[in-house]
């Protein structure tokens, strides 16, 4: 029986492991954290259908349990990777016949954009923090009161040369719309503003959701980035921006500011490049063999990619990637 190591237990890695296992391939799934599920584990509902994230994860776990072929090792990190062997940070090494790297991405650290005051002012939170609040069903201000006006800022750590993140993180626009709707559902009386550069509604149902946010939920959209945030006299957040459609600077007092943090490539990718000979893109994401016919293969035969390791992707795309990578692995093992 062939043995494949899948590194990263997020949705792409889980999908890939399950698909390989169903093809009678022995799989070892390595996960850094204490449990599988990756970033989706911290999410409340998924756009554009508001499907609970848990539903997707339990579906995947169920699929993985269909065979006995998967061994999941949590709390372990891979350091060096070759098609035949993966070495762990503990020093242990595992032999295999192929490797799938599905280590995903890192959330942009909002502290870096100091001008937005994350970690400085109480009611500046990130989109990930908001999901956590949704999960606890406890969206409130630090002092426990209800927010009456909320601003959501797009492109924090995306399309921003100043923090060396030139790429678009792709999913934040629609996340902003989704979270605005959820906030409005929770607090219908609140004013919710989205500050954006462009609204990129690329997926099925996204545009419809965007329209619904405006028509049904009366979410406001302002084209313009927020330049700085400061506390104002009554201890609310004062935001400064420019409405680029009217060409006027604007100031607004808000109770809560949500920063839609982007997807950053993992720092570890640099060592995959240096130690394992894998190719990186300028953005830091890994470079697949090509963008069309071999987009889940790496430049090294026997090492494959799945999910957001190669570019920002939404959950559905990551799941597709997991399945595709499994097929490519199987093809390759058959040729051996």
């Amino acid at each position, binding site marked *: 029986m062939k043995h494949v190591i899948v590194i990263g237990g997020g949705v792409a890695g889980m999908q890939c492991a399950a698909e390989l296992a169903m093809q009678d391939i022995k799989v070892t799934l390595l996960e850094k954290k204490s449990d599988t599920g990756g970033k989706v584990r911290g999410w409340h509902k998924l756009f554009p259908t508001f499907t609970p994230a848990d539903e997707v994860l339990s579906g995947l776990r169920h699929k993985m349990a269909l065979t006995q072929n998967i061994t999941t090792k949590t709390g372990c990190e891979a350091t060096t990777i070759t098609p035949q062997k993966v070495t762990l940070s503990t020093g242990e090494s595992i032999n295999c016949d192929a490797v799938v790297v599905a280590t995903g991405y890192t959330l942009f650290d909002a502290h870096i954009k*100091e*001008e937005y005051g994350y970690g400085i*002012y109480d009611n500046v939170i990130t989109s990930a923090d908001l999901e956590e609040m949704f999960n606890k069903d406890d969206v409130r201000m630090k002092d426990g009161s209800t927010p009456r006006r909320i601003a959501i800022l797009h492109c924090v750590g995306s399309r921003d040369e*100043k*923090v*060396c993140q030139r790429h678009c993180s792709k999913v934040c626009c629609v996340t902003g719309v989704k979270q605005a709707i959820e906030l409005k559902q929770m607090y219908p009386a609140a004013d919710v503003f989205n500050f954006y550069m462009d609204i990129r509604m690329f997926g099925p149902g996204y545009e419809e959701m965007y329209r619904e946010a405006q028509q049904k939920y009366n979410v406001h959209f302002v084209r313009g980035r927020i330049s*700085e*945030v*400061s506390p104002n006299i009554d201890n609310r957040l004062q935001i*400064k921006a420019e409405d680029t459609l009217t060409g006027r600077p604007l100031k607004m007092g808000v109770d809560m500011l949500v920063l839609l943090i982007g997807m950053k490539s993992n720092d570890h990718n640099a060592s995959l490049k240096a130690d394992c000979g894998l190719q990186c893109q300028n953005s830091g994401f890994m470079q697949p063999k090509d963008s069309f016919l071999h987009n889940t293969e790496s430049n090294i035969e026997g090492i494959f990619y799945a999910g957001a390791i190669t570019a920002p992707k939404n959950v559905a795309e990551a799941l597709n990637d997991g399945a595709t990578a499994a097929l490519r692995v199987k093809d390759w093992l058959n040729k051996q």
Partner: protein
Amino acid sequence: MTFFADFCIPFIVGEIILFTAIAIKYIMWLKGLPKSDKKLILKGAFSPRFFTATWEVIRESLLHHRIFKVNPLLGYMHMSLAFGWFLLISVGWIETIAYLGLKMIPLHGHVFFKYFIPLNEITAHKPMFDFVMDFLLLFVLSGVTLAWIKRMRSRAMGMKKTTQHISFDRIALTALWFVFPVRLLCESVTSAIYGGGSFLTGGIGTLLAAGINTEILHAIYEPLWWLYSCALGIFFVAMPFSRYMHIFTEIPLIFLRHFHLRPEAKEKSYDNFEVEACSRCGICIDPCQLQMQLGINDVQSVYFLRDRRKNRLQQKIANNCLMCGRCEQICPVGINLNTLRLNSRTSMRNIPNESRYKYLKNLDRSSGEGRVGYFAGCMTLLTPNTLSAMQRIFDAAREDVWWADKNGGVCCGRPLKLSGESDSAQKMIDYNKSLFYKHNITILVTSCPICLRIFNEEYKLDGIEVLHHSEYILRLIEQGRLHVNYSTEHTFTYHDPCELGRGSGIYNEPRAVIEAIGTLLEPSHSRKNALCCGSSLANTAINDSQQLTIARNVAEDLDNTGAETIVTACPLCKKAIARGATHQVKDLSEIVAANIL
């Protein structure tokens, strides 16, 4: 004795053109000076400053003391050429007097003395002069040799890069290279035919006499003197129009500087003295980070001054400078490179837009009350950790503070000034100045060195003491109004912001504050030699990734100290370095606020 031969003509023509050109230049420049500058000259000429200036002329124009300090080999090269040639001329003059007594001899009579008075025409030979003149010639020749080496392999002279010259400079340079070797040949052949000379010309003369037919020596005798005269003539003609004009410009410049003449925000006639005093030695090239990190090779001060002198300065050259002051700091002539670049920028794009500043009228967003005013500046408002740290420091010291711009204020004006819009900058200056006076503050604290610089240089705030927050915090600690926790476990390294260090001369205060909290580890480039973070407002030409390349290099230097925290005292530097560093980057106020007892 008639001191004339046909071969003197090129020399005489050259000398006439040289002195005429210099005289015209001096007269034009001095005439163009504003009245106030002329008054300063009159006042200075009859003061002790005249003598200090004379001493500096000897030290710098002849001995090249400052170049020695930067690079001893280069210093020797410049000194042997300048001081050696000067001595050759003056000893040569004494020699003619010694032989012929005091009488009017034309300049070429001195220069071609060995031709006009060969040994056979001298009754009482004074070999002492032969020895001294040979020795001096050897001294100058050693400098010429080094100049050759510098041209061919600048690294051997301790310079990574040397200046790329234009045609006039090349002509003058080539002529200058020929002058002394040809002089050596002329005097050696003279010695071979007529005797005389000392260890150098005499020695070579003896060898020539032994090895070469006398007829041949006689045949090349005149042509060699022609060659010598031509080399000098060409050099003289090229001189006022090439970099060698610096020889005659540096001397008046030193006097004018001692008389307190300075370049200003707008171009003026005095600038000519500074611009033409540049010898294009190229010392400013190596320290330039644009050259070091980005390989930009045509914007450095030497090229900027050259283009400005030739009236062909382009915006893309003038704007491509960090104005970090690293070159100004090392310039052996002490030219005010940043001021000149700024007034060039002003001449090129100072078009104030009146309607843009209407909003300034009756605007006052300040808050609080106190004798101490705090001006955060735009960049501090974008790094609110610094602002809240200052708040905690003021609270701990129980200081009543007037907050000038906590709720948004008007820019200090320095960014506009740096981009050449000095009239627009003046509107900001006038606005802020009246705001400061309106609120009766006696001390103005800012945490932004960019603001600090313009407060000090342009605001002329009589009755208000301007302090950088590093100075203010140190004062609080020394007065016992602020107590901080000291621990040897905290290790810090410090990045000198350009505007604070080289720009405002504040190096010790931030270090003293850091040392009150923990251990300070110096990076390899610090104080006057500190690097620029790369995000300077002064440079509008390089792009973000080029800024980042510079920032990463600076951050590496700081990371290499192994200190747990990189401290700086400028919000712009903090943001820039944080992009490239692996260690945390904090403003000075943040580490103080975190350690208040």
